[in-house]
């Protein structure tokens, strides 16, 4: 997995093909919208019983990202749990796994609209986290600068030689970076959606995830 280096708010960052973000100078790894426990929440609320393996899958991929980068800090950018009860309902194995991943590094849970309160799962809970020029928060705010957020699950869709391609993506404008969702059971919002258009501009770039990161001009995507 080769990372894609780029500069954002005078900071050298790496977008990883898995959809995680790495800040080498701080040894900080950031992932967004894990939505752990989603299948449990859907079943609890009377929906269907989806394959209950998304927490395992998401944690497996998170562990791989951690193993690959060995970060000193991990920031989970909100909506880490599909709701607070889903977080509380994680199996003992999944809780132990999370605790194990936290060993030897600081771990920050940014609060999201799905998980607005702390859970007893180690790490610290914050509304937002500011380091140097960068602000980590769940939902993008008006007029922010150097802001890294999640929430929208942006995905890029385009048609190349008759083939329809749709991938989760990072969106980067001059002042903000919106992260793709890292969780296994997450859908996407087309990056042409008016909500995202508001947040991006003509010079914005989309970084498509996949086997490698592919940068494309935001204005060309749908």
């Amino acid at each position, binding site marked *: 997995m080769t990372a894609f280096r780029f500069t954002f708010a005078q900071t050298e960052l790496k977008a990883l093909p898995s959809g995680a973000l790495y800040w080498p100078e701080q040894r900080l790894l950031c992932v967004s919208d894990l939505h752990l426990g989603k299948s449990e929440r859907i079943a609890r609320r009377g*929906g269907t019983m989806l394959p209950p393996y998304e927490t395992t899958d998401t944690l497996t991929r998170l562990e791989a990202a951690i193993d690959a980068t060995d970060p000193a800090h991990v920031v989970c950018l909100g909506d880490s749990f599909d709701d607070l009860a889903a977080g509380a309902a994680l199996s003992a194995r999944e809780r132990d796994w999370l605790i194990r991943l936290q060993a030897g590094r600081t771990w920050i849970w940014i609060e999201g609209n799905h998980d607005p309160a702390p859970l007893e799962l180690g790490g610290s809970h914050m509304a937002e986290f500011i380091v140097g020029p960068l602000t980590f928060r769940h939902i993008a705010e008006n007029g922010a600068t150097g802001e890294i957020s999640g929430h929208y699950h942006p995905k890029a869709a385009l048609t190349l030689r008759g083939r329809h391609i749709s991938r989760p993506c990072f969106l980067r404008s001059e002042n903000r970076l919106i992260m793709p969702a890292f969780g296994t059971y997450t859908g996407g*919002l087309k990056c042409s959606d008016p909500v995202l258009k508001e947040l991006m501009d003509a010079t914005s770039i989309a970084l498509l995830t996949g086997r490698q990161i592919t940068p*494309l001009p935001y204005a060309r995507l749908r």
Partner: protein
Amino acid sequence: MRALPPILKNWFDTRGWSIHPHQQDMLDRSDAPSLLLIAPTGGGKTLAGFLPTLADLAEGPHEGLHTLYISPLKALASDIRRNLERPIAEMALPIRVEDRTGDTSATRKRRQRADPPHILLTTPESLALLTSYEDAPRMFAGLKRVIIDEIHALEESKRGDQLMLAVSRLQTLCPEMRRVGLSATVDDPAAIARMLAKHPDPCEVVLADPGPDPDIRMLETTEAPPWSGGGGRYAIPAVLEQVKQHKTTLIFHNTRAQAEIFFHHLWLANEDSLPIGIHHGSLSREQRERVEQAMVDGQLRAIVCTGSLDLGIDWGDVDLVIQVGAPKNVKRLVQRIGRANHRYNAPSKALLVPANRFEVVECHAALEAVKDHDLDGETRQRGPKDVLCQHILIRACAGAFDAMDLLHEIRTVGPYADLTRAEFDDCLDFVATGGYALRAYDKWQRLMQRADGMWQLRDPRATRQIRMNIGTIMDPDTLKVRFTGRGGAPLGEIEEGFAAQLTPGDTFLIGGQIVRYEALREMTVEVTRRADKEPKIATFNGTKFATSTQLSQRILRMFQQDNWPTLPTHTAQWLHLQREVSRLPEPGRLLIESFPRDARHYTCVYGFAGRNAQQTLGLLMTKRMDELNLAPLGFVATDYATLIWGLEPLRDPAPLFDLHALRDGLDSWLAGNAVMKRTFKSSAIIAGLIDRNHAGQRKSGRQATFSSDILYDTLHRYDPDHLMLRITGEEAERGLVDFSRIEEMITRVHGTIDHITLDRVTPLSAPLFLEHGRTPVEGAGQDRLLADAAQELMAEVGLDAL
């Protein structure tokens, strides 16, 4: 002989009508527990089905529902209601007839449950829904007869399986209920009889006089058909000439896209402005109803249509049917021809228009098959388990049940007669707990077993969701198309995938009009009437039928003749030339040709296994060739052959046709394949694992629900033995993958492979070079495409220095 009650007899007499022998037969045997009528189109089938009901109700009053009539088409149900209401009114019979479909209002539906009419006309899906209500026993109390119209159209589909499961439920509620099936001419009446009867009871069959043979011929054209492709545009002048000579003509096409293109060009050539309409399943209801009404009123001279017009709606005076493109299946051809001349004992008239040179051969083979009354049939498969899972959910909605009682009831349905206890338990466990190796849903399971052993819904509120998902028909994700502006007229639907390829300014064809894509607003494609560009052709995910085994075999036998006096000269010469430079494929042998062209090595496999199987064969063979370092680059498949190209010549094809190796290849290839994911999605919806996407639920500005592909991949990784994956495998193999026909082909040829190496393209393989739908063989192709595009686009906007 059971006599008609006087009031009915009088009504017949005053019209100068006499009862057909098969109608009398149906009346005489109306006490049979199961009774199947096989009659040609126009044989008064529906009346034959209803006569005993009318006789019963004319003879004495009946409390509640007497007869339930089920048709595969909503339109048919309302059509029949109108046809029944007239005689009932004229005879002043005390009979209430109502229909109930997805279009019936909620108030009316509620009233029908509380106070059912004597005769209720409905569809399989509406019936399934009715059986899911707790008050079903009360509503169906006293039910005497269930009539299943056009039962042949339901025979090979999940709708039929669902219907017969619902009927098994009705039979338990009403042990005295008699089953009546009405079918068009079919190859194997016994198979339909087995479907209709309560297993293992017998079913009586009434065979009506099949009437005179149809007058069916090839359409003579001055221009020879092209070498490849579909659509039959070359025949438009001759088709118009026929339309002029007849009162009303139906012009059938095999796909909606072809119907659109043909209609467009037909109008360009329609100098006399003959009133010609178009009708297919993707047009808006308003559009379709307008065409249907115009047809009934005799205002149209022709309708360009697809299978949406296949079933027996009364279309008035159709005197000619034209089939454009090879019919692929003789049975369907015969039923379409039956649409013409809807009068008993008059021959129907039809013309075949082959779309390309090979279809000339196929059409001739089909003509002969019709003459020989050799109809094709599929071997009936075991009942699908996704439908069974849905049935268990529907049963649970109606109240607590005993698992063994339900199993016994299910086994009275033919296709499920040999369902094992273990298979049933698997389905029940899936429905109840999700059936995962990781038992994660103890707390939230859907069904639970009570202390007394009965099963019931854990949360009774789940009924709403289950009922919303009832049905086995899979609509592709479509977007509505309408003209811009407030209240713009709706035109129909296009598939989301096609819409995604459009950019504002692009034009496309819909309902015969060229429209210009302007914007996508709240899941609606807005268009204007500006046609300033060559239109794109909308793709519709309508089923592409594969040529049936019987028809393929007939073509192979035809190839064995010394010459072909009945074929047009151009086609006969083509076959003679093939015989000269190579050979013609034979039944019981497999012909493979290899030849170089333009620095590539080509191999053509004439499997005659139908489009889906030939496509699968292409995927499996290229995979094997890749392993053997033959560097295959791509392939294309038709109903009769697969053409593969690569960098190395194929010297010995035998190792490629080892059934075990192919099967292994299939299993590993299938796992990550798009066909599997598509199959998984529909089975998962039917089985109740994921909800149907109801129109209007998807709003903009929110993340879409995640794709079912993710569920498939997750299950495959963490629970590969899960029931849903097993069901998906079974479904794909008999559906899009059609591996059974590859197996059949390999068994049929017994290893007798004729491999001919030549120095150039052969006459029979040449048309394959012109086929669309080539499949590239690739690994990381998509990423390579992306990388190229990225470089180009970033440079274009000056961001390449990033």
